């Protein structure tokens, strides 16, 4: 895998209006091309805010973000072409069928005709949704919705995929299908930036990890490196609790 940085974040600061603290506080991150990068942290650590700024959904107060050599500014259309976003919410239309949802998002990415239809068929088969493809998604289970939510972010074959807790609250089978396909996708060259609360999943899935808390990076490295550095911990979960504390967050 290439070790060229595809995402470089320098001194990134985000402070929400009315808040006395920075949600993201002078954050520096480097994500290499081909990584499965895990951005981990407790609730309110600044993970989703960081992902939102990377996807140009939010502007930082200061600092810079460079993705694939392009610095994020007001107009990020070139960048948007190479990224795929899978939000934490099921960002789909409940009153459209699975096919109609995918067709709409595909067309929004400029895809059309046979190539779009073929992609939709491929992904529906891949994620075992073919049989229900003509059903309204308000009839779908949580796992089916999550799988469809992922497909909607993959249709345009992005080089970088941002996943905000893609497996939260779903059955083991759905989780397995999603993780296995993401690994496959990464092998084909897609860089994955992923946030999760599931430490075991992150430990097995990620090639590189950054743990952030109160908007700052508090640890980084491969899962193995982190375990090696923290000799008193046996796994990522223990490291996470050691670094971020055991008190419950809001």
């Amino acid at each position: 895998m290439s070790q060229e940085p595809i995402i470089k974040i320098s001194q990134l600061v985000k402070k929400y209006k009315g808040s006395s603290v920075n949600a993201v506080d002078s954050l520096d991150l480097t994500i290499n091309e081909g990584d499965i990068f895990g951005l981990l942290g407790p609730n309110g650590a600044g993970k989703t805010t960081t992902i939102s700024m990377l996807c140009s959904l939010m502007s930082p107060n200061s600092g810079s973000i460079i993705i694939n050599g392009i610095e994020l500014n007001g107009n990020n259309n070139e960048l948007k072409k190479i990224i795929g976003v899978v939000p934490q919410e099921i960002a789909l239309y409940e009153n459209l069928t699975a096919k109609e949802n995918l067709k709409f998002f595909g067309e929004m990415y400029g895809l059309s005709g046979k190539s779009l239809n073929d992609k939709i068929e491929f992904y529906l088969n891949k994620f075992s949704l073919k049989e229900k493809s003509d059903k309204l998604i308000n009839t779908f289970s949580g796992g089916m919705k999550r799988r469809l939510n992922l497909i909607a972010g993959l249709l345009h074959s992005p080089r970088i995929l941002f996943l905000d807790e893609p497996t939260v609250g779903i059955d083991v089978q759905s989780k397995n299908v999603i993780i296995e396909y993401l690994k496959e996708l990464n092998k084909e060259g897609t860089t994955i930036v992923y946030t999760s609360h599931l430490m075991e999943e992150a430990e097995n899935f990620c090639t590189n990890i950054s743990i952030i808390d109160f908007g700052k990076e508090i640890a980084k490295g491969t899962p193995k490196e982190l375990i090696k550095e923290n000799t008193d911990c046996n796994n990522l979960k223990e490291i996470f609790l050691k670094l971020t504390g055991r008190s419950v967050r809001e």
Partner: protein
Amino acid sequence: MNRLLASIKKELLLLSRDRAGLAMLFLMPVFLVLVMTLLQDSTFKKLNEKQLPILIVNHDADTFGINIVKGLNSANFFKVSEDNNLSKKELEKQIEKGNYLIGIIINENSTNLIKNSIKQKIQSQFPEEVGELFEIDGNKTDQVKVEIFFDPVLKNSYKQSIMGALKQFSAMVEAKLMFEIYSSLFDELLEIELKPTENFSQLVFFDEKYAASDQNLIIPNSVQHNVPAWTIFAMFFIVIPLASNIIKERQSGVSERLRTIPGSNLIGILAKAKTYFIVGFIQAILMLMIGIWLLPVFGLPSLQIGKNGLSLLFVTIAIIMAATSYGIVIGTIANSEQQSSIFGSISVVILAAIGGVWVPNFMMSDLMVNVSKISPLNWGLNAYYDIFLRNSGLYDVLPSIGLLVGFAFVCLLISLYYSRKVKT
């Protein structure tokens, strides 16, 4: 273009599956226009035709009594009933019960009293040397008294109209009697027999016309008011499903996902505006068709839409633009569906009420007429009135179109400002 078409297609699909939204957009206005037109039909009839029920007790079977009853009957806006056997108390009771709005008692011998008064007045014009010209019937020279009883609910304007009518008829009778007495005097003094005047009518003719540019005048009635009024109301009710659609998209995370897709964020808003524009246009056509063809089935007059189709088209477009933009601004600013539906529906109802949808402007107080000018529904309604009732052309309705389009742009600018503010 492909993205815009995809968005419009998606909006149409979503709308077609929203049964409650469709019912609100199409069934509610049809129901409203039918019910409100039927309800207000009698009010408009009263206003236009003034068929006020009158009960007359006529004890004077002579010129005065007969002519007053005849005159009231000939004026189409009174529904006259005559019962000469009723006592004063019985008549009052009928009015109290609300069976009649007005009761009139014409006392016995009224004609003779008038004649005596006229003769006395003529006599006083001649010098004493001429002597007695007439035989005046005893001392019966008292003023004639016509007793009128009003239902307390009767509006002052109706009282004025009945009083005006009675004064007019009695003046005509007085003049007729005077003419007859002078004729007999001519005959007696100069031995010239005058021919009887068969048709003793008003000498001044009041030519009443409506100030409309075209001679094919359409008289305002409940249909001419209610159909355009409720059409505009329905078009503005687009606000609720449209705002709800925007909020749902925002809350589900779809709008954020769409913002990560290359291209202008305006496409989503444009697609919604265009979709609901189509809906508004269908609503307008449907409501006009109901006014023209369905309402006559219920015994109501058919809607007359005037001759200026182009003005009608542009005004309709401007109203839909204003309504969709208002929906977009509410959907952008509101934080929840409940908030948008409560604010959206109440604000539209208030704007409709002050805009003259419920009660036409000409029935409002001066204060409310001025207040109504702030409502976009009033701008649209006035423009429709101009086209339907006054046959106004495009130039005449341009100020209303300008106001509606201006309102739409202000709403869109606020939405844009607000959505950008949220992004940062």
